[in-house]
């Protein structure tokens, strides 16, 4: 118990320190390689030229899921960008809680159903009827992601997807134009942000991650050697 608390406290303190130290020296550190984000910015700009609508699907996860939280953060950045370019953004939700949050962040949000396939049917129908040009999927998805992305890809809609769900990644990778997977997804809102603290947090987490990975690798090697010596 004590050790666990100590580890958590160390993690929080080291992370906070790293954020503040990096924030002060961010300009001389690394320029973030964010090709995919730049691509998305370009697409949003092109969309503004054609006057199309952007559909945002935050998945079927509840608000308590970390992926849904990231999705909301990312949506806020997208809304900011779309405001700059004058694009209409609409969102659909499969959870009443998420709907309320989307409604607060964005004017045009729809609640469909908690049933994932009903959500998929609505999204596929909307893409077909309204000839949408861009769809962003970001959050927790199940098998319904497959039907949505496949029907959108048949209509040559530009699709940007992100999920940390391992099972859905192959479907998104094949059907969508850009897929952000795993840990990258959690850094995406910060990458689009102009807030220096958020940008510093990406580098800080990278540094702490490297330390954790080194710790795991070294521990593995030490335990293996110890077992070999013992045997």
């Amino acid at each position, binding site marked *: *118990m004590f050790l*666990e*608390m100590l580890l*958590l406290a160390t*993690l*929080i303190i080291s*992370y*906070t320190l790293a*954020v503040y130290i990096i924030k002060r020296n961010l300009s001389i550190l690394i320029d973030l390689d964010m090709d995919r984000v730049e691509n998305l910015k370009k697409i949003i700009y092109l969309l503004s030229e054609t006057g199309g609508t952007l559909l945002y699907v935050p998945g079927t996860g509840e608000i308590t899921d*970390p992926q849904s*939280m*990231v999705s909301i*953060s990312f949506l*806020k*950045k997208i*809304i*900011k960008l779309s405001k700059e370019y004058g694009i209409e953004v609409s969102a659909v*939700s499969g959870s*009443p*809680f998420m*709907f*309320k*949050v989307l*409604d*607060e*962040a*964005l*004017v045009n*949000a*729809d*609640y469909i159903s908690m*049933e994932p*396939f009903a959500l998929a049917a609505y999204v596929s*129908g909307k893409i077909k*009827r*309204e000839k949408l040009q861009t769809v962003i999927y970001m959050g927790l998805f199940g*098998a319904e992601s*497959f*039907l949505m992305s*496949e029907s959108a890809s048949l209509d040559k809609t530009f699709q940007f997807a992100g999920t*940390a769900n*391992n099972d859905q*990644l192959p*479907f998104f990778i*094949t*059907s969508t134009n850009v897929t952000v*997977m*795993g*840990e*990258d997804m*959690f850094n995406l*809102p*910060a990458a689009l942000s102009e807030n220096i*603290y*958020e940008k510093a*947090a990406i580098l800080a*987490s990278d540094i*702490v*991650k490297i330390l*954790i990975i080194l710790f795991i690798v070294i521990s593995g090697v030490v335990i293996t050697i110890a077992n070999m010596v013992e045997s």
Partner: protein
Amino acid sequence: MIKKYLPLFTAVSLGFFFVMQSFTSFFDKYAEILRNWVILISVFALMLGVFNLLHKNLKRLKSENGNGKIYSLVIIISFFITVSAGFINWNRTIFNSANYFAGKPELVRKIVAEAISNDPYFSFHPAKEKLTLLISKDIAPYYIPEEKELKESGFTLQQYLSFFNDDSKLDPKLMENSVFRKDAKNIKEFSLRIDNFSQDIAYSVIENTKIRKSVSLYGFSNTAEIRIRTLIKQDLSIRKTDRKQSLTWIFDVFYKPLSTAFFALLAFSIIAIIFKSFRLKNSFATVFVISATIVLLGHISFGKIVADTAEIKELQFSALLDWLLFVPNMSAQRAILISTGLGICFYSLKLLLGIERPYDGEDDGK
């Protein structure tokens, strides 16, 4: 000022509160209250969602643009039909499982015994492990093992039941009855969500007031679930309360076939995806095609025929398949899983420290 800092303060303080709660049981009571608040709020959120659905569809019906009007009409009609069916069957559809099971300790015992004996999870376990598991889940009094099982496990009936009940010094036969009689009073809830669609089906909870502990009886297997349903149905038909319910009818006749049909569409989408993926666009696609071919040949008997015809003994598609699944595939999946875990960990830290504020709609939202 308040609009900006109040949500931040609430989120950060509650975040740290729940972190502390996972380390000490001191905050459990307060955490439970907060979790109940979430349930309360979710009811209102659901109502808001439903009203939004109605509002948007009615608006679309009224609009001059005819695009998708028919869908809105279908949604509104089915919404009102389903809601009215719910109200008409108010007394019949509410299955108060707590009341229903509280007066029926024998039925509870029968259900648990059926569930356990039909569950492959239990049947694959040796007797001792099985009984220990039942004891650890506090469901021992609902399952009285056979003599053979007791012998194999090394427990006596008294020992087996004593882990749960302090009155174990009594005669086992008497005790068996007394345990049931007592628990019949103590059972506050033994709920079975018998009509749910997902694997949550028949996930039951026994709440024992004496030990003040929630005990979950985990999701039963399909076979066990069918047995439980049959038992309850039999009991209901004896009491002549199993009437035709319009809500169940709507669910069985409309919802189930439609959702199954939609789910079946996945098969066609998978074929389309395979076709797309098999196009050799670059070197990665080539690797993909080769591995997919190996996986296909490894799964079907045709792979063996190919190996036999080619007369190459080393050509073992099933062995290659195993290697592909358990070495490159597994390592890649684990890499993604570890990275996701780290991502979630650091995103949570950002939320805790107030660096990331998805709840704050002021800066970037409307």
